[in-house]
């Protein structure tokens, strides 16, 4: 048992990390699926899309051979339409309410069709937006994740000059660093960001961190408005003994390492335990298996009904051979010579609902142990409490409080994405950015 890299051959790794949901090979294949769309009126799929993409319209445009129009329809509502087509939990959103399912038939593959149009737009470098001529206003966007990009693009289309500040070396935020490599590749993220920036009027400053390289006051002084889309920080600590041991890592760092280096060079344990059951936990667990871990066990303190990840994601983990320990709560991490050897868990039972309307996990007194040389924490990220706490931004435990138009307690400063909603899907962040841009525009015109 040990944590090591190079567990699998290059060929095995490249197979394990290839695109999990390959695109349509040809237009006819896409058209055949697209023509299954009934073109519903007031379509449930579109109503369930957080960015309200006119789904029947973009699908019909595939059928009519207007792929450019189809991509425009998607991007107009969701400029990260390509990324969302790969990472959205669509069975809970658009595809989940496709009316075909009311006849027990499979839904129209909306995500794959969306990918078909938008991928072509990127490949062909279609210029689908005609930005208004520049108005004399400048906006700073902090963070180049989905919310920041969506906001910057919407503003640029309206003729506003935007500067995006990004602390990492590459743009894209969680899209670039926080999602399994078999869903989106770093290259595709880069292409997507480049495509968004190609609208013009958006400057990108990489390696610039708020609170280290510049301060909010600099931005409010130098720009007409500021949009904070800084996302979330480190993984929430477990707060149990043994957390400091070698081999205890956080999921975001693990996934980020897979995303930024060669697969073969990423160290992974032989027996891995992943704590949590969200999308990030699944991404960490499946990728640990795909890097060559023998045993991967997901540990979650509630039951399958309460799991935050989607059914599709859970099935993916199971198909990858990951085991699941429901109703188990980490109690202590044991080690030898400073390295993890096992995780002790409390057996949990669920009692009446707690404040979130979820059953309350209660310790039964029974414990059990899982052998492990690596423990990956995927228990959600915590906000940047340090910085936000010290600022004059109104917040709750680092989550910035905003009004209906994403305005913060500081005039001219707006915020959206995970830093406001505490961590949701990419598509929600995009909608925040898009909606905030509209309020910012109104603000700019008034001031």
């Amino acid at each position, binding site marked *: 048992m040990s944590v090591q890299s190079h567990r699998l051959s290059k060929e095995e790794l490249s197979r394990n990390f290839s695109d999990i949901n390959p695109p349509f090979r040809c237009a006819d294949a896409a058209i055949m699926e697209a023509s299954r769309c*009934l073109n*519903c*009126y*007031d379509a449930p799929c579109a109503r*369930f899309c957080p960015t309200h993409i006119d789904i029947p319209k973009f699908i019909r445009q595939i059928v009519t051979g207007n792929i450019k129009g189809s991509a425009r329809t998607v991007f107009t509502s969701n400029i990260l339409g390509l990324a969302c087509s790969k990472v959205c939990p669509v069975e809970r959103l658009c595809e989940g*309410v496709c*009316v*075909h399912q*009311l*006849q027990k038939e499979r839904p129209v593959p909306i995500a794959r069709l969306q990918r078909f149009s938008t991928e072509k737009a990127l490949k062909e470098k279609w210029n689908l937006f005609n930005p208004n001529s520049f108005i004399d206003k400048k906006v700073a966007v902090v963070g180049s994740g989905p919310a920041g990009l969506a906001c910057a693009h919407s503003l640029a289309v309206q003729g506003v000059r935007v500067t995006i500040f990004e602390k990492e070396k590459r743009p894209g935020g969680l899209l670039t660093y926080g999602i399994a490599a078999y869903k989106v590749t770093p290259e595709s993220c880069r292409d997507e960001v480049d495509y968004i920036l190609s609208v013009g009027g958006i400057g990108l400053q990489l390696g610039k961190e708020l609170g280290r390289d510049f301060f909010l006051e600099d931005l409010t002084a130098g720009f007409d408005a500021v949009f904070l889309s800084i996302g979330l920080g480190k993984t929430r600590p477990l707060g149990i003994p043994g957390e400091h041991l070698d081999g205890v890592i956080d999921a975001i760092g693990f996934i980020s390492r897979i995303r930024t280096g060669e697969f073969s060079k990423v160290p992974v344990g032989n027996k891995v335990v992943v704590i949590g059951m969200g999308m990030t936990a699944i991404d960490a667990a499946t990728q640990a298996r795909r890097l060559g871990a023998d045993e991967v066990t997901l540990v979650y303190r509630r039951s399958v009904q309460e799991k935050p990840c989607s059914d599709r994601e859970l099935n993916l983990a199971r198909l990858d051979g990951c085991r699941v320990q429901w109703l188990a709560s980490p109690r202590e991490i044991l080690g030898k010579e400073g390295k993890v050897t096992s995780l002790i868990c409390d057996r949990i039972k669920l009692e009446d609902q707690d404040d979130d309307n979820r059953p309350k996990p209660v310790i039964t007194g029974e414990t059990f142990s899982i052998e492990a040389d690596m423990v990956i924490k995927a228990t959600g990220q915590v906000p940047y409490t340090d910085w936000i706490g010290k600022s004059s931004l109104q917040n709750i435990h680092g989550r910035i409080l905003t009004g209906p138009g994403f305005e913060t307690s500081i005039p001219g400063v707006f915020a959206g994405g995970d830093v406001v909603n505490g961590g949701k899907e990419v598509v929600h962040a995009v909608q925040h950015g898009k909606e905030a841009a509209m309020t910012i525009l109104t603000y700019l015109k008034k001031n």
Partner: protein
Amino acid sequence: MADLSINFLGIKSPNPFWLASGPPTDKKINVLRAFEAGWGGVVWKTIGAPVRNVSSRYSSLNYSGRKIAGINNIELISDRPVEINLAEIKEVLKLFPDRAMVVSLMADNHRESWHDLVKRTQDTGAHGLELNFGCPHGMVERGMGAAVGQDPEIARMIVEWVMEVAEIPVITKLTPNVHSVVPVGRAVAEAGSGGISLINTIQSVTGIDLETLVPNPGVSGCSTFGGYCGPAVKPVALKFLTTLAQDPVTSHLPLSGIGGISTWRDAVEFFLLGASSVQICTAAMLGGFRIIEDLCEGLDDWMNEKGYQQISDFRGLSVPKITRWEELNLNYKVVASINQDLCIHCGLCYITCEDTSHQAIVLEKGLPYNTYNIKEEDCVGCNLCKIVCPASGCISMIER
């Protein structure tokens, strides 16, 4: 088991499905494969006047993600020498004596040419002749094909020439590229044609290549009007068939129905509107000869269910059910009814009624699914909602 066999003007066939004159019946090898698959008969692709064909011959109409609502062609009659065709016909007749062998003919407009062609053809032992008065392209310009079928007097004259020497049954194939097929139908009936087949293809342009701006099918930068066929032409064919079945002169002749027949259902409709045999070409070209299996099985199952022993039991039964508009009952009233248990909430009934009909459907917002209800007092019973509804049985029209 129902008896699917037919006797059309004395031409016997184990089932009513003949391959129409066209590419599938151009050569011995194709026809043998068709007979092996189980087809009841063929109309051998038109022989006669010498021609040369172009390369790039077919194009299709695709619709709403579905391929081939219809197909058109600019191919002419057989471009192989008459004597080779006749020799092959003879060989096929020997191998499959129980199948109907009708030969399609088209000569130039001379009595001797027709006499010669008819005599040589019947020497093969073929069971019948079909006169091609319908080809809409290539031959028209030379005064043949549809040029004959559009002029009752020329058609009458040629049939008379043929009847002077014909010793086997003669069927005349009509063109739909006319206002009415009845005048030509009557003319050929009066001239002695034993039966009539219809329709030939409809002159058409299926579409244009939007890159090159050349209409389809493009032949070196240009195209020409082609003959349209396939599922899209069935309604036109059924209409023309009905006019012959209702005409006091032509209704006495056996009619062979052609035009967009793809399934046994289509075939039954042609029989119900007066056809005694049906001919199929496009469906076979798009699926191969194996489609004969379900054509026969579907027809047999339907006849058994309805208690019909042979095709003549139900032939023409729907002919009197097509009347003039003014004879329709103006007091008849239906309204739409939505079965909420079967509704899949797509809203198509609502938006089509709201935008293009009578605003007779009420939308009740719901999440994620809206509910739709009929406003009976505003419903005129147009059927549109029932037509667009994708859930079988969900919308029905109720008599009031």
